[in-house]
Protein backbone atom coordinates (compact mmCIF):
# COMPACT_ATOMS: atom_id res chain seq x y z
CA UNK A 1 0.00 0.00 0.00
CA UNK A 2 1.20 3.44 -0.83
CA UNK A 3 1.54 5.76 2.16
CA UNK A 4 -0.73 8.79 2.14
CA UNK A 5 1.37 11.88 1.55
CA UNK A 6 0.19 15.18 2.83
CA UNK A 7 1.64 17.97 0.78
CA UNK A 8 0.52 21.28 2.26
CA UNK A 9 1.75 23.35 -0.70
CA UNK A 10 -0.14 21.25 -3.21
CA UNK A 11 -3.26 21.38 -1.05
CA UNK A 12 -3.31 25.16 -0.86
CA UNK A 13 -2.51 25.79 -4.50
CA UNK A 14 -5.40 23.56 -5.49
CA UNK A 15 -8.05 25.43 -3.55
CA UNK A 16 -8.70 28.29 -6.01
CA UNK A 17 -9.12 25.93 -8.96
CA UNK A 18 -11.71 23.72 -7.28
CA UNK A 19 -13.63 26.20 -5.19
CA UNK A 20 -13.58 29.14 -7.59
CA UNK A 21 -13.06 32.66 -6.43
CA UNK A 22 -16.03 33.97 -4.47
CA UNK A 23 -14.74 37.55 -4.70
CA UNK A 24 -14.93 37.59 -8.50
CA UNK A 25 -18.17 35.65 -8.48
CA UNK A 26 -16.78 32.70 -10.45
CA UNK A 27 -18.40 29.90 -8.46
CA UNK A 28 -17.85 26.57 -10.18
CA UNK A 29 -20.21 23.60 -10.33
CA UNK A 30 -18.56 21.52 -7.60
CA UNK A 31 -18.22 24.28 -5.05
CA UNK A 32 -19.55 23.83 -1.55
CA UNK A 33 -22.37 26.32 -2.14
CA UNK A 34 -23.74 24.58 -5.21
CA UNK A 35 -23.46 21.19 -3.53
CA UNK A 36 -25.43 22.52 -0.57
CA UNK A 37 -28.01 23.99 -2.91
CA UNK A 38 -28.40 20.72 -4.77
CA UNK A 39 -28.89 18.69 -1.62
CA UNK A 40 -31.28 21.23 -0.15
CA UNK A 41 -33.34 20.93 -3.33
CA UNK A 42 -33.37 17.15 -2.87
CA UNK A 43 -34.52 17.47 0.75
CA UNK A 44 -37.18 19.93 -0.35
CA UNK A 45 -38.34 17.48 -2.99
CA UNK A 46 -38.71 14.75 -0.33
CA UNK A 47 -40.67 17.13 1.88
CA UNK A 48 -42.96 17.96 -1.02
CA UNK A 49 -43.55 14.30 -1.84
CA UNK A 50 -44.38 13.63 1.83
CA UNK A 51 -46.86 16.49 1.61
CA UNK A 52 -48.37 15.01 -1.56
CA UNK A 53 -48.60 11.57 0.06
CA UNK A 54 -50.46 12.98 3.05
CA UNK A 55 -52.82 14.86 0.75
CA UNK A 56 -53.42 11.77 -1.38
CA UNK A 57 -54.24 9.75 1.72
CA UNK A 58 -56.62 12.41 3.00
CA UNK A 59 -58.41 12.73 -0.34
CA UNK A 60 -58.60 8.98 -0.80
CA UNK A 61 -56.37 8.74 -3.90
CA UNK A 62 -53.89 6.53 -2.08
CA UNK A 63 -55.40 3.67 -0.11
CA UNK A 64 -52.18 2.49 1.57
CA UNK A 65 -51.29 4.20 4.82
CA UNK A 66 -47.79 2.77 4.87
CA UNK A 67 -46.78 4.53 1.63
CA UNK A 68 -47.64 7.84 3.26
CA UNK A 69 -45.75 6.92 6.41
CA UNK A 70 -42.69 5.89 4.37
CA UNK A 71 -42.70 9.20 2.50
CA UNK A 72 -43.03 11.14 5.75
CA UNK A 73 -40.21 9.13 7.37
CA UNK A 74 -37.92 9.66 4.37
CA UNK A 75 -38.54 13.39 4.52
CA UNK A 76 -37.92 13.40 8.26
CA UNK A 77 -34.60 11.56 7.99
CA UNK A 78 -33.42 13.79 5.15
CA UNK A 79 -34.34 16.85 7.18
CA UNK A 80 -32.48 15.55 10.23
CA UNK A 81 -29.39 15.06 8.08
CA UNK A 82 -29.76 18.63 6.81
CA UNK A 83 -30.00 19.90 10.37
CA UNK A 84 -26.82 18.01 11.31
CA UNK A 85 -24.96 19.51 8.36
CA UNK A 86 -26.25 22.96 9.28
CA UNK A 87 -25.15 22.47 12.92
CA UNK A 88 -21.69 21.49 11.75
CA UNK A 89 -21.44 24.49 9.43
CA UNK A 90 -22.52 26.88 12.19
CA UNK A 91 -20.09 25.21 14.56
CA UNK A 92 -17.22 25.66 12.11
CA UNK A 93 -18.21 29.29 11.54
CA UNK A 94 -18.26 30.01 15.26
CA UNK A 95 -14.93 28.25 15.66
CA UNK A 96 -13.44 30.56 13.05
CA UNK A 97 -15.05 33.65 14.59
CA UNK A 98 -13.51 32.75 17.96
CA UNK A 99 -10.07 32.56 16.39
CA UNK A 100 -7.66 35.13 17.85
CA UNK A 101 -6.03 37.15 15.10
Amino acid at each position, binding site marked *: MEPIRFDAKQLFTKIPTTAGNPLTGGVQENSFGSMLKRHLAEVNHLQNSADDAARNLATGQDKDI*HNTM*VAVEKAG*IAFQLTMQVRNKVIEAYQEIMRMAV
Partner: protein
Amino acid sequence: MNFFDSMRTSASGLTAQRLRMNLVSSNLANTDTTRTEQGGPYQRKEPVFAATPIQSNFKEVLKAEISSKPSEVNVVEVINDERKPLLKFDPLHPDADPQGFVLKPNINVMEEMVNMLTASRSYEANVTAMSTSKNMVQKALEIGR
Protein backbone atom coordinates in the same frame (compact mmCIF):
# COMPACT_ATOMS: atom_id res chain seq x y z
CA MET B 1 -28.93 6.27 -1.53
CA ASN B 2 -28.57 2.98 0.28
CA PHE B 3 -30.88 3.73 3.17
CA PHE B 4 -33.75 4.64 0.87
CA ASP B 5 -33.20 1.38 -1.02
CA SER B 6 -33.86 -0.66 2.11
CA MET B 7 -36.86 1.49 2.91
CA ARG B 8 -38.27 0.95 -0.57
CA THR B 9 -37.74 -2.79 -0.24
CA SER B 10 -39.62 -2.90 3.06
CA ALA B 11 -42.38 -0.73 1.63
CA SER B 12 -42.82 -3.13 -1.28
CA GLY B 13 -43.13 -5.96 1.27
CA LEU B 14 -45.81 -3.99 3.09
CA THR B 15 -47.74 -3.42 -0.12
CA ALA B 16 -47.49 -7.11 -1.05
CA GLN B 17 -48.72 -8.26 2.36
CA ARG B 18 -51.59 -5.76 2.27
CA LEU B 19 -52.71 -7.23 -1.05
CA ARG B 20 -52.43 -10.75 0.36
CA MET B 21 -54.54 -9.68 3.34
CA ASN B 22 -57.15 -8.27 0.95
CA LEU B 23 -57.29 -11.60 -0.87
CA VAL B 24 -57.67 -13.47 2.42
CA SER B 25 -60.57 -11.19 3.38
CA SER B 26 -62.10 -11.82 -0.02
CA ASN B 27 -61.74 -15.60 0.42
CA LEU B 28 -63.19 -15.50 3.93
CA ALA B 29 -66.10 -13.30 2.90
CA ASN B 30 -66.97 -15.57 -0.01
CA THR B 31 -66.90 -18.96 1.72
CA ASP B 32 -70.57 -19.50 0.82
CA THR B 33 -70.78 -17.58 -2.46
CA THR B 34 -72.48 -19.64 -5.15
CA ARG B 35 -72.75 -17.00 -7.86
CA THR B 36 -70.00 -15.07 -9.61
CA GLU B 37 -69.82 -12.96 -12.74
CA GLN B 38 -67.94 -15.76 -14.50
CA GLY B 39 -70.62 -18.23 -13.43
CA GLY B 40 -70.27 -21.03 -10.93
CA PRO B 41 -69.17 -20.73 -7.31
CA TYR B 42 -66.47 -18.36 -6.05
CA GLN B 43 -62.89 -19.53 -6.59
CA ARG B 44 -60.26 -19.06 -3.93
CA LYS B 45 -57.67 -16.40 -4.86
CA GLU B 46 -53.98 -16.47 -4.08
CA PRO B 47 -51.18 -13.97 -4.85
CA VAL B 48 -47.95 -14.89 -6.64
CA PHE B 49 -44.91 -12.98 -5.37
CA ALA B 50 -41.85 -12.24 -7.47
CA ALA B 51 -38.54 -10.62 -6.53
CA THR B 52 -37.62 -7.71 -8.78
CA PRO B 53 -34.46 -5.62 -8.45
CA ILE B 54 -34.96 -2.05 -7.27
CA GLN B 55 -34.85 0.07 -10.37
CA SER B 56 -35.59 3.62 -11.23
CA ASN B 57 -33.30 4.10 -14.21
CA PHE B 58 -31.17 2.15 -16.65
CA LYS B 59 -27.96 2.52 -14.64
CA GLU B 60 -29.57 0.98 -11.58
CA VAL B 61 -31.02 -1.93 -13.56
CA LEU B 62 -27.57 -2.66 -14.97
CA LYS B 63 -25.99 -2.36 -11.54
CA ALA B 64 -28.57 -4.71 -10.04
CA GLU B 65 -27.81 -7.24 -12.77
CA ILE B 66 -24.06 -7.32 -12.17
CA SER B 67 -24.03 -6.98 -8.40
CA SER B 68 -26.33 -8.44 -5.79
CA LYS B 69 -28.43 -5.45 -4.86
CA PRO B 70 -31.52 -5.80 -2.69
CA SER B 71 -34.65 -6.65 -4.60
CA GLU B 72 -38.19 -5.69 -3.77
CA VAL B 73 -41.19 -7.96 -3.88
CA ASN B 74 -44.04 -7.53 -6.30
CA VAL B 75 -47.32 -9.32 -6.76
CA VAL B 76 -47.07 -10.39 -10.40
CA GLU B 77 -50.46 -12.08 -10.61
CA VAL B 78 -53.41 -13.28 -8.62
CA ILE B 79 -54.26 -16.88 -9.42
CA ASN B 80 -57.53 -18.73 -8.95
CA ASP B 81 -57.27 -21.88 -6.91
CA GLU B 82 -58.30 -24.71 -9.23
CA ARG B 83 -59.64 -27.02 -6.54
CA LYS B 84 -62.91 -28.75 -7.33
CA PRO B 85 -65.91 -26.99 -5.73
CA LEU B 86 -67.70 -28.82 -2.94
CA LEU B 87 -71.07 -30.45 -3.56
CA LYS B 88 -73.70 -29.82 -0.96
CA PHE B 89 -77.18 -31.31 -0.96
CA ASP B 90 -79.63 -28.45 -0.61
CA PRO B 91 -82.65 -28.83 -2.92
CA LEU B 92 -84.30 -25.62 -1.74
CA HIS B 93 -81.33 -23.48 -2.79
CA PRO B 94 -82.07 -21.43 -5.95
CA ASP B 95 -78.70 -22.47 -7.47
CA ALA B 96 -79.29 -26.19 -6.91
CA ASP B 97 -79.02 -28.50 -9.95
CA PRO B 98 -81.93 -30.90 -10.84
CA GLN B 99 -80.49 -33.51 -8.46
CA GLY B 100 -80.59 -30.97 -5.62
CA PHE B 101 -76.83 -30.37 -5.30
CA VAL B 102 -75.30 -26.92 -4.90
CA LEU B 103 -71.69 -26.12 -5.87
CA LYS B 104 -69.94 -24.37 -2.99
CA PRO B 105 -66.45 -22.78 -3.00
CA ASN B 106 -63.75 -25.11 -1.68
CA ILE B 107 -62.46 -22.74 0.99
CA ASN B 108 -60.97 -24.01 4.21
CA VAL B 109 -61.47 -21.33 6.86
CA MET B 110 -58.57 -22.69 8.94
CA GLU B 111 -56.22 -22.38 5.97
CA GLU B 112 -57.35 -18.80 5.41
CA MET B 113 -56.77 -17.97 9.07
CA VAL B 114 -53.22 -19.31 8.83
CA ASN B 115 -52.65 -17.23 5.68
CA MET B 116 -54.04 -14.20 7.46
CA LEU B 117 -51.73 -14.64 10.44
CA THR B 118 -48.76 -15.16 8.11
CA ALA B 119 -49.62 -11.97 6.24
CA SER B 120 -49.99 -10.06 9.50
CA ARG B 121 -46.67 -11.33 10.88
CA SER B 122 -44.88 -10.62 7.59
CA TYR B 123 -46.28 -7.11 7.64
CA GLU B 124 -44.96 -6.66 11.18
CA ALA B 125 -41.57 -8.04 10.14
CA ASN B 126 -41.37 -5.52 7.30
CA VAL B 127 -42.34 -2.67 9.63
CA THR B 128 -39.66 -3.83 12.10
CA ALA B 129 -37.04 -4.01 9.35
CA MET B 130 -37.94 -0.52 8.22
CA SER B 131 -37.88 1.04 11.68
CA THR B 132 -34.60 -0.72 12.47
CA SER B 133 -32.93 0.70 9.38
CA LYS B 134 -34.38 4.09 10.30
CA ASN B 135 -32.91 3.75 13.79
CA MET B 136 -29.54 2.87 12.28
CA VAL B 137 -29.54 6.07 10.26
CA GLN B 138 -30.58 8.11 13.29
CA LYS B 139 -27.76 6.54 15.30
CA ALA B 140 -25.36 7.44 12.50
CA LEU B 141 -26.56 11.04 12.70
CA GLU B 142 -25.82 11.01 16.41
CA ILE B 143 -22.13 10.49 15.62
CA GLY B 144 -21.87 14.17 14.75
CA ARG B 145 -23.61 15.36 17.92
